């Protein structure tokens, strides 16, 4: 969770069409901006592409979760069948691993699925009760309806409020606003 901060979060430009957003985002990325993000009412693959969408750790979290589920269930069954409650079932050995496979597999899937979902939430910072972008009225009104946003964030070393504003205005957005924390 981000610590409470003061000052400018970033500069937010509102565009009317996805094409304008993608052109501006590409130009910003090419100009060296790295702390920037695009916001659109629906997934916009081109936008992700031009700002250098990179891989994340969700697959790793999922793999670890799956392996944990596998080990947990297989050990649980082994413990129950051999130590805690050994039963003679049709004369089979108490450690009859073929019978353990199905539940172990189910737990692999269950843990992997839950790890993927919760790992994704943990890594992207959701659920989030507060995000500074909602301070901008244009964002509140348009981001989930029909407007396309590009935000250059203040944490970028290139960030300078007046230069960034001039840069964004070069693309003729509907508006460019400073967003406070």
């Amino acid at each position, binding site marked *: 969770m981000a610590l409470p901060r003061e000052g400018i979060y970033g500069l937010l430009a509102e565009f009317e069409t996805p094409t304008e957003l*993608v052109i501006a985002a590409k130009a910003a990325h090419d100009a060296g901006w790295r702390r920037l993000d695009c916001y659109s009412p629906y997934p916009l693959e081109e936008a992700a592409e*031009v700002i250098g969408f990179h891989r994340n750790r969700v697959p790793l979290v999922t*793999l670890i979760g799956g392996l944990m589920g596998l080990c947990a269930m297989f050990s649980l069954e082994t413990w129950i069948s051999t130590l805690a409650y050994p039963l003679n079932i049709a004369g089979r050995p108490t450690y009859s691993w073929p019978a353990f*496979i199905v539940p172990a597999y189910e737990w692999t899937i269950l843990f992997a699925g839950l790890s993927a979902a919760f790992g994704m939430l943990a890594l992207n910072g959701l659920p989030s009760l507060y995000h500074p972008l909602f301070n901008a009225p244009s964002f509140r009104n348009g981001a989930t309806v029909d407007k396309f946003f590009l935000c250059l964030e203040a944490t970028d070393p290139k960030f300078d409020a007046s230069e960034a504003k001039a840069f964004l205005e070069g693309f003729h957005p509907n508006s460019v606003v400073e967003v406070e924390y």
Partner: protein
Amino acid sequence: MGHAKTLPADLSAPGFVRGWQARSLVVAVLFTVTAVVLATLDHSAEHIYRAWVVGLMMCFGFSVGGLALLMVQHVTGGKWGLLLRRPLEAMTRTLPLVFVYWIVTGLWMKKLFLWARFSDAAAALKAGLINETEAHAIEWKRPMLNPEAFWIVGLICFAIWAFYTWKLNSWSLQRDADGPSTTAYWIRKFDNLSGFGIVVYALTMTAAVIYWVMSMDVTWYSSVYGLLFLVGEGYQVLALAVLTALSLSKAEPIKTILRKTEQYDLGKFMMAFVMLNIYLAFSQFLIIWSGNLPEEIVWYMNRINGHWGIIITLDFIFHWLIPFSLLLSRDIKTNKKRLMRVAQWMIFAKAFDLFWLVEPNFKDAAGNLHFSWGILEYIAVPVAMVSLWVAYYSWQLTRRPLVQTNDPHLAEILEPEHAHA
């Protein structure tokens, strides 16, 4: 953000496909010689007959399995299908070679099947050639398992596969000859043929594998057997089709139409077949292991005891663990070279699985894995047969344009693609 690409004017197979053909013919000859040498060392041709079945099932899997996947992609549509269609069609057109392999298998029937060797089970039992269970099974299954039925059922199956092969292939050329205004008509037409064809394929294929493989152990039966082979065919066909498409992508025209998006999709599809395959194989094992009935369990005991445990463990590793672990990775699925390695591995794993299925059917090998020069025929004979098949397949690949042009997905596949992480 580029613009849509244009398809090259020449859609025929690149020159190096001729090279594949020549090389596989050389391999076929070398391994045929090896097979003969091994038989001399072994002082018996016994293992040639057995290994022949492995070769037959590999080639049958590619050819008729290719027909099945071709029909599936006609029914489902999708851009991946456009990429694989012509390679799959080339696979189906190798049916004549599979037919020849099958005729040879039929001629060796008495060497392979107890039910064919002993027309009088009672006499064979008295002479001590078979045990009581086998004698009973031979008599009981006589209406289905007899030489006449083997030939008749086989001929009917081949006639049906040939009909679908002919229809799908000739329509495919007519479809390209017709203009874009006919696309919807052709899609409907292919749909209607393929939908029913898939059902017919599942039934005929089940009959075929019961006659050709399952009945080598006359006492045993498993109702999931046909399905197991059906999925196994999907496994090997998809591996070969992906291998073909990726190898062809070094040159036009596939170079233009192969995108990361579809390659990644095909990788996921391979993963699905790897999963389904182990799911069915393990289900059969789990059910028979749980039941532990004397009629069924022997089949597994023949394939686990006496060092066969090593083979079944390796089979599990080769067939499932390795391709599964590799295909989990997105990097491998989107890397051409690596995905090709996985596809090659899967084809090898399929052959290894067939070895485990076939060899323990015979008395000298059941529950007793041991070395003889003959057992190496399982390498020599299938490699020779599959190489000859590959030569035929490569030749068929050169006979048509590699891309179907009268298809709505063509425009989509030529569009630029988006981010992949």
